[in-house]
């Protein structure tokens, strides 16, 4: 009952989301076309809602994937420092004043993408020095990298001009604001590609969620599957974060919420986690656009304010059992 109500609410919000914001839009105006409000709807609102939907899907599914592959509830691209890598990359591009476009993609996004990807390679390289079961050590490595990146970013911040710093701060807070359809389509492709790969390897994932040994003994090439899934997920996350900046907590809490709502094995939670993550981020984004603040509240702040207490609640409920 509560489950259905929750889904229903999120789906209703999803359809309302393109209509609300700084300017209220009516269906009548949109269907007329050619008006300013119709332009707002088709070029700003709709792309933004769909961007948020696929972004939420990527974040939630990557969270589930990382948690399962590493058998650790705290493993997400965000906690492993991959998002911070993107922020640092973007920060460097902003500081260098790079404004060139490559294939229509801004230098800030490209540098962000490179930062995320380099962090993944660095983690894979460093993980060779850990024992096979060094999941906690890997998490610590990620946190250490994150802190290091933040310090470098601080140096850039102190060297930067006021304009550069403003751009930098906006990027680090996360934003789902997009204009036109280029980025929503890019993110949709990334999300569907990630979903396809995870779905294709769902039984391998199920075995690896038991243990690496058990998966190997059943004939899974665990190294290959791990690298492949990490690569696809990191690509999707890298593309996303390079556009939107880091958006925390979705990857951490959505898989846990779905696990609480649906106590079934991982293969049956893949699609639900992805959808719920997408709808949840759309709802958060809608909130950020409708709150009566001076300017739009950054999405990263909303997800953290909702996600933090909810996560604490989950931990307490779990500990009681």
């Amino acid at each position, binding site marked *: 009952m509560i489950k259905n109500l929750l889904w229903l609410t999120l789906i209703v919000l999803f359809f309302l989301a393109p209509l609300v914001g700084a300017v209220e839009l009516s269906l009548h105006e949109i269907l007329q076309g050619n008006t300013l409000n119709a332009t707002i709807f088709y070029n700003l609102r709709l792309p933004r809602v769909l961007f948020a939907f696929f972004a939420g899907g990527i974040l939630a599914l990557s969270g589930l994937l990382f948690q*399962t592959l590493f*058998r*650790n509830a705290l493993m997400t691209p965000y906690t492993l420092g991959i998002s911070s890598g993107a922020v640092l990359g973007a920060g460097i591009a902003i500081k260098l004043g790079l404004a060139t476009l490559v294939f229509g993609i801004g230098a800030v996004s490209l540098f962000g993408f490179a930062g995320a990807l380099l962090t993944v390679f660095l983690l894979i390289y460093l993980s060779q020095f850990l024992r096979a079961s060094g999941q906690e050590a890997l998490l610590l490595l990620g946190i250490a990298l994150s802190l290091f990146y933040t310090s470098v970013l601080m140096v850039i911040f102190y060297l930067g001009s006021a304009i550069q710093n403003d751009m930098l701060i906006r990027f680090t807070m996360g934003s789902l604001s997009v204009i036109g359809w280029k980025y929503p389509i890019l993110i949709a492709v990334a999300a569907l590609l990630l979903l396809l790969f995870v*779905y*294709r390897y*769902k*039984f391998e994932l*199920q*075995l690896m*969620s*038991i*243990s690496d*040994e*058990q998966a*190997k*003994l*059943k*004939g*899974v*090439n665990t190294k290959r599957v791990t690298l492949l899934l990490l690569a696809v997920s990191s690509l999707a996350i890298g593309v996303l974060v390079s556009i939107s900046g880091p958006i925390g907590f979705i990857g951490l809490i959505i898989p846990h919420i779905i*696990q609480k709502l649906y*106590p*079934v*094995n*991982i293969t049956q939670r893949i699609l639900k986690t992805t959808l719920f993550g997408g709808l949840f981020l759309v709802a958060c984004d809608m909130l950020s656009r409708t709150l009566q603040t001076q300017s739009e509240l950054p999405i990263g702040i909303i997800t953290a304010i909702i996600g933090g207490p909810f996560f604490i609640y989950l931990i307490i409920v779990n500990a009681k059992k």
Partner: protein
Amino acid sequence: MIKCANLNISFENKNILKNITLEVQNHLSILGANGSGKSSFAKALSGLIEYDGDITIDSQNIKTLTPNARAKLLSYIPTKLELYDTLITVEEFVLLGRFPYKESLFSYAKKDYDIVNEMLAFLGIAHLAKHTISELSSGEQQLTLIAQALAQQSKIIIFDEPTANLDPKNSQIIAEHIKALKKEHTIILITHDLHLAAFVDSQVLFIKDNSAKLYDKEFFSDTMLEKLYGTAFSNLAVRYD
């Protein structure tokens, strides 16, 4: 038949087993003190750890087998079931034993489900099929692990200290299953439990001081046990005739 030729296993630059050369006819129990290398030997056999030298099973060198072919040849049952996704049901867990035979990318076949149900019934845990793993007792978990290995339909089944966490009644149930499985499978049993080893009744590989030696029935004589373990077992109920 399992053959080892000049087998050397080391871990973090420390030799665990040195120059092991042996031929096992059929079933095997592996005994030895804690840390003597029993599990390492079994893990080398299963392809989980690196080793020097050669291990051949029915004249196939296991280093050259694909992971899939190895899974069809050999299954390994750990002492204890530890998993991250505790929401998996018994039926779903046993179904994973069918992974090496899965033909479709996205689902298991009806035949796979039939085999799973057959194995659950065979081990007397069909009523637990829809329960999640976390709801099971240690004995039931061990039976679930065995069901998964049986669903894997591999010729060789390796048991890694199967009774270490069990009470005497469950130990007895598991012991009888292991003995019964000898008919259709090659059983490799790693254990500290002399009763269990004597009951299962196979050749014994005793590992001590980095080397291993094969014994037949004479292993269970009082004098031999005292010689190997360095202590007398005057209260041991085992009498091997």
